[in-house]
């Protein structure tokens, strides 16, 4: 089946099998490997991307369900010249990662948290990230990173839709 999906601001049309998962579409068809597949059972959140402004677990969405949608992956966050998105910058500054496997999903989910609540408390960040597991248990600095990003204001919850070079 033919689908048209705008991925990181760039519309593309692909012929896909109906059973192709969005996570596999992004990784295998689009070649965007930042989106990790961890548990593959909607539990760990490593595959979190933003679809039409909402965080979703792309291992539990079909590519055909996303036909016509705007999808943003971690690769779509950085600005021109590789300037980090404020959420990425905050994860770097606060050391919000250890092994890094959960990080792409964590960053995308965190942008979703701030979209709902621009200035969350520690507890609200933890509740907002309840669907993302960090096997290194590095939650403390992740929470700190999200709160630091919140201080950056609207930019930290901005989901880029225009194509970045």
């Amino acid at each position, binding site marked *: 089946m033919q689908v048209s999906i705008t991925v990181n601001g760039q519309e593309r049309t692909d012929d896909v099998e109906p059973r192709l*998962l969005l996570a596999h579409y992004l990784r295998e068809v689009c070649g965007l490997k930042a989106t990790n597949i961890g548990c593959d059972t909607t539990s760990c959140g490593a595959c979190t991307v933003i679809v039409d402004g909402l*965080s*979703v677990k792309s291992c*539990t969405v079909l590519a055909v369900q996303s036909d016509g949608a705007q999808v943003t992956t971690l690769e779509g966050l950085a600005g021109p010249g590789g300037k980090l998105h404020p959420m990425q910058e905050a994860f770097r500054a606060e050391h919000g990662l250890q092994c890094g496997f959960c990080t792409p999903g964590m960053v995308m989910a965190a942008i979703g948290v701030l979209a709902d609540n621009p200035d969350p408390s520690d507890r609200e960040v933890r509740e907002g990230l*309840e*669907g993302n597991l960090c096997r290194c248990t590095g939650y403390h600095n992740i929470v700190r990173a999200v709160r630091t990003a919140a201080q950056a204001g609207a930019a930290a919850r901005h989901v880029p839709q225009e194509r970045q070079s």
Partner: protein
Amino acid sequence: MIPGPFEYLRAGSIEEAISALGEHGDDAKLMAGGHSLLPLMKLRLAMPAVVIDISRIPDFSYVRVDGDEVAIGAGTRHYELERSEVARAEVPLLPHVAARVGDPQVRHRGTLGGTVAHSDPASDLPTALLALDGSVVVQGPDGRRSIPVTEFWLGFFETALEPDEVVVELRVPRTGSAGWGYEKFTRRENDWPIVAVAAVDGRVALANMGGTVLRATATEEALAGGASIADASALAAEGTSPSADMHADAEYRRHLARLLTGRALHTAA
């Protein structure tokens, strides 16, 4: 994990979905958010030959007051119910419970109609709907009918839906400022309940205490007869048949049912 192959159809209306169900029969499954069905398909526990996507049906997501009831479109996603001002004012138990389903990403996809049709006895929202004594409006080739929630869930993954019927709306009485309580016991915040209890208006519903969500009828009768919360909640596990799994054995679930019923009733009071 990759689902088995299937044909994908997109219904533009409820009527199209019903007609596709009529044409493909048992080989077809409806998919809205896909957060119950797709995991089963990935595990190959479900292998429908045809998937009918009903997520693009217009006017399928709404929460509105209709007389003494609140009517909720089956396509309403959990996060929409969670944030609905109408739901918060008229039936606050429901948005509270919606916010306890899974995690934000799951709530962005899952729908109320989907969780109702799925009939998992460990589901949060069906437990709340049962405590609210609501009804399920379904539509088939001959039109609509309303099924009380007490008659809708027949067993594990089994409902009173005919093969060519679609859940189109959920209806619950407006409870306004009446007290309510919801107690959910999990190991991790985003899990299904090991046991959960919803209480509102003298009614008590239990999650994961049998093949379907259940009403704690002995507790309700005791309350109606003037029993204390302590005495009534001690009866919460009467007539239940909880299963045992890696999280809890049956006796522990009975214990949780009694304990959580007491807490939910105290909150509601």
